[in-house]
């Protein structure tokens, strides 16, 4: 029975390792910055998720006590990772995209990042 448990834990670890590796490889292979942004979101979902599942399985099946710390890690990752991605994406739009390069924003005419630039108080950093 112990063998099956160990096999299960090893399986989750290998899965997470593979997806972490593919995510990192994606950072090298993909050429444009916006596509590169997709690689880390991969590593934080299945990559970390696999390790956490393995950790839960290990504490329950091998050490025989319930440990649910890992669920909290998942919760905090899911709360913080999209914010980081959004910051990087907005930075990219601010510095490298013009309103006419993006799809039409419908009745609002401009995307929020560009709409802010029209306020005169915002200093223009794009030339430095």
């Amino acid at each position, binding site marked *: 029975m112990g063998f099956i448990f160990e096999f299960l834990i090893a399986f989750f670890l290998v899965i997470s390792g*593979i*997806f972490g590796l*593919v*995510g990192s*490889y*994606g950072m090298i*292979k*993909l*050429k*444009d910055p*916006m*596509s590169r*942004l*997709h*690689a880390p*979101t*991969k590593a*934080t*979902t*299945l990559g970390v*998720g696999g390790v956490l599942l393995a950790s839960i399985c290990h504490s329950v099946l091998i050490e025989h006590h319930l*440990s*649910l*710390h890992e*669920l*909290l890690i998942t*919760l905090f990752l*899911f*709360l913080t*990772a*999209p914010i980081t*991605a*959004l910051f990087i*994406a*907005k930075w*990219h*739009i601010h510095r490298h995209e013009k309103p006419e390069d*993006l*799809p*039409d*924003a*419908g*009745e*609002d*005419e*401009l*995307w*929020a*990042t560009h*709409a802010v630039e029209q306020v005169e108080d915002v200093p223009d950093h794009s030339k430095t």
Partner: protein
Amino acid sequence: MIRLLHRIFPHPHLTFLLTIVWILLANKPSLNSVVFGLILGIIIPFITQPYWPDRPKLRNWPMVVEYILVVLWDIVIANITVARIILFKRDADRQPNWVCIPLELRTPEAITVLAGTITMTPGTVSCDLSAQGHNLLVHCLDAPDPGAVRDQIKHRYERRLKEIFE
């Protein structure tokens, strides 16, 4: 009586959630951590009450569970799809694309959840809101057909969020 309860627990869900999180942090469900978690769960909503004047009401709890399961399943599927794109597709064949998603959701919290979901699903990253919050700008790693991506997000996520929040 109900009013008094409402004064003590202005946000019962938050009280419950904080208690659970505290017990998870302590990592063993002893009476000690339950009591202290409850104390935190009562004090924190009480203090932060002025910061959420019109918080949305969750209407459909079974839908919340369904939504979480759907998202987790989609994350696994999308991870495999994206891994295949990274490993086996030549960079020249890949068609990265911006997709504009017209939003029917109006609650800020619902839009936040939708944007977070889109980012956590590999292959799509939500990048910006339009100036008045009527559209969501999403970047796709490989989307030959932007319309299909838009329809899928609207059908799978936004429809469910609309039932949960509005």
